[in-house]
């Protein structure tokens, strides 16, 4: 009887613990998303370093405008051969590219989402990832002394190209510090590391990122500067009118 009670207690514990873990995974992911999307809008300048396996580097400078998790406008400031190129994301399937050489805005199909954005290690999908909980569910959660480690799997019907994400976030402020991107077959494809975490205008934010493509060894390092939050960008700002407008 004593053994039976012990087993029953253990089963109950496992069930409750599993449920609690799933729940806590959901809660942690919601907290991570809420920190990620806490600012109403953001304007920043990014220095992008494209680093080859042999160490050779290319530098890109972009200006980024963002509102909520959906609307984003990116404009290239340098080098000269891409200066003025603009990218506008209104929704997942309304993407536009402005090519100053032709003075033309072209709509781009969302099938481009798996492609690298302007030679970086970030795909269009990575650039558009604003809210993890929308597309992914927390399957499991582990914790170390200072960090949570969540295994995220795509929600049924989610239009994503990764099979799994392993996301690491700080316990103290719920800021994402590392993401491992796995293919649907389970191969590790890319690793994103986030550093330089600061509190800016009351929001926790990682100002340095590095995305590495595992197979090629190519890396893209991002350093953000002139970060401004809650500037009151209106939804109408994210338009062709502004995409074409020179800085």
């Amino acid at each position, binding site marked *: 009887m004593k053994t039976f009670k012990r087993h029953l207690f253990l089963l109950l514990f496992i069930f409750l613990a599993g449920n609690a873990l799933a729940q806590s995974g959901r809660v942690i992911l919601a907290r991570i998303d809420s920190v990620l999307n806490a600012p109403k809008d953001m304007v920043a300048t990014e220095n992008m370093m494209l680093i080859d396996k042999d160490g050779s580097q290319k530098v890109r400078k972009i200006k980024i405008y963002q509102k909520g998790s959906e609307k984003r406008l990116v404009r290239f400031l340098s080098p000269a*051969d891409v200066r003025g190129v603009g990218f506008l994301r209104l929704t997942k399937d309304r993407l536009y590219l402005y090519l100053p050489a032709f003075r033309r805005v072209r709509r781009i199909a969302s099938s481009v989402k798996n492609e690298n954005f302007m030679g970086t290690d970030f795909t269009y999908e990575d650039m558009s990832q604003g809210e993890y909980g929308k597309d992914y569910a927390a399957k499991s959660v582990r914790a170390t002394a200072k960090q949570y480690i969540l295994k995220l799997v795509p929600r049924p019907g989610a239009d994503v190209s990764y099979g799994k994400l392993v996301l690491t976030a700080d316990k103290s402020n719920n800021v994402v510090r590392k993401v491992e991107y796995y293919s649907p077959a389970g191969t590790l494809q890319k690793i994103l590391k986030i550093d330089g975490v600061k509190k800016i205008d009351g929001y926790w934010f990682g100002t340095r990122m590095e995305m590495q493509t595992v197979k090629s060894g190519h890396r893209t390092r991002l350093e953000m500067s002139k970060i401004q939050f809650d500037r009151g960008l209106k939804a109408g700002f994210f338009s062709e009118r502004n995409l074409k407008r020179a800085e």
Partner: protein
Amino acid sequence: MLNLKRRPDNRSIAWFTKAIGWLLVALVFFTASSVSAQKLRYSGFLQLDKRFTVSGDSVGIADFYNRFRLELAAPMNNRLFAFASVDFRFYDLPRVGTLSQLEDLSRDYPTELSIWEAYVDVYGFLSKNFDLRIGKQRLAWGTADKLNPTDNLNPDDFSDLVNFAEKIPTWAITGNYYLGDFTLTGVWLPSLTPVLLPRHGADLFLGSQASEFQDTLALPAPRLNRSMFAFKIGGNLGKWDYSLSYFNGFDDIPILTGVKIKSLTNAKLYLNFPKIQVVGADFATELSGVGLWGEGALFLPKKVITRKVMGQFTSSSVALEDKPYFKFTLGGDYTFPGGWYINSQWMHGFFTERGEDSLHDYFILLLEKQLLQNRIKVSLGGGLEVADWQEAQNNYGFGLFPELTYQAIDNLELSVGSFSTGGKPSTLFGSWKNADQIYLRAKISF
């Protein structure tokens, strides 16, 4: 040889336009001096081009232009922006026939200089939703990929056969009013800017007889009632972007209006630019990741008669009926997970084709792949033309346009490619079969 001669009054307007252009460039450079050096931006590119023509067993080197573009952007404040660019083209094959020409560097190596763009933007003019652009500008209308039947405000730039879908900026005043998802555009163009044809290659676009005779070309008279205007309303409904447009002006490609034959070796052609109205519509959307677009233009021409005078005999024929004709382009694109990009378009009616019975069908396919972290781009283009579906076996043309681009170093782009066409003489691609070329191009941006 087709000679773009202007009537005296047209010469004065051309001079006036040129003078205004240089004044505007000077204005931009002058006002730029009042903009802080940090904001002022110089940019441009140097493009060096070598063309090899293939004819039988021999390979010739074509007399093709190189290009130096200097741009100056001056953001004055958040309401005012000025921009000017100068296009300098230079040839590197000497063109001399006499000893005295050896004394002249400019004759040895001809050059061409033009103001490419020169405009001033006023954002929020009179209303916060209204933007104004005044000056020489590019007005890119339509949603198709380069093959745009509704893009009629700027003249065609056929100077490079390889890039036959290019356009030249032209003088205009453009107003854009933004209201939510809607944009209302109004454009006024004071005069017509004619097409730019390839050097020694007018025949490629105007027909095989164009360059065999002397000619006189008449531009529309420079009067207010002969100026051109256009309107467009654009918006989006859900996933669909659309626009409706109207253009009232002149075709930038001349048409034959008279032939005066004095003898078998002495004939003169008279050409002018037909008046047209174009009602256009376009859309762009995507379905399951496939980008889709369509663009149609209903051309409403005025009747053009060609009069032929041979001694005392005169006759006339209709060069262009006053019957509407419809040009369109339908297309789509998709990027496969492996990175291959496919772009396919069906164009009914090339830029130079006029009249319902003259419109050919063109099917253009483009495959592209970026390799080695975008260092190399492989592009395979191909086209099929059908001039008459009833007798397609005798009325087809084809083209192949492969290109390899190396862009491993920032601001440097090296390209090698070829442009080759063939087919029956009744087709455009067939008529270009002797213009096959291989090109090497280096473009340095700064």
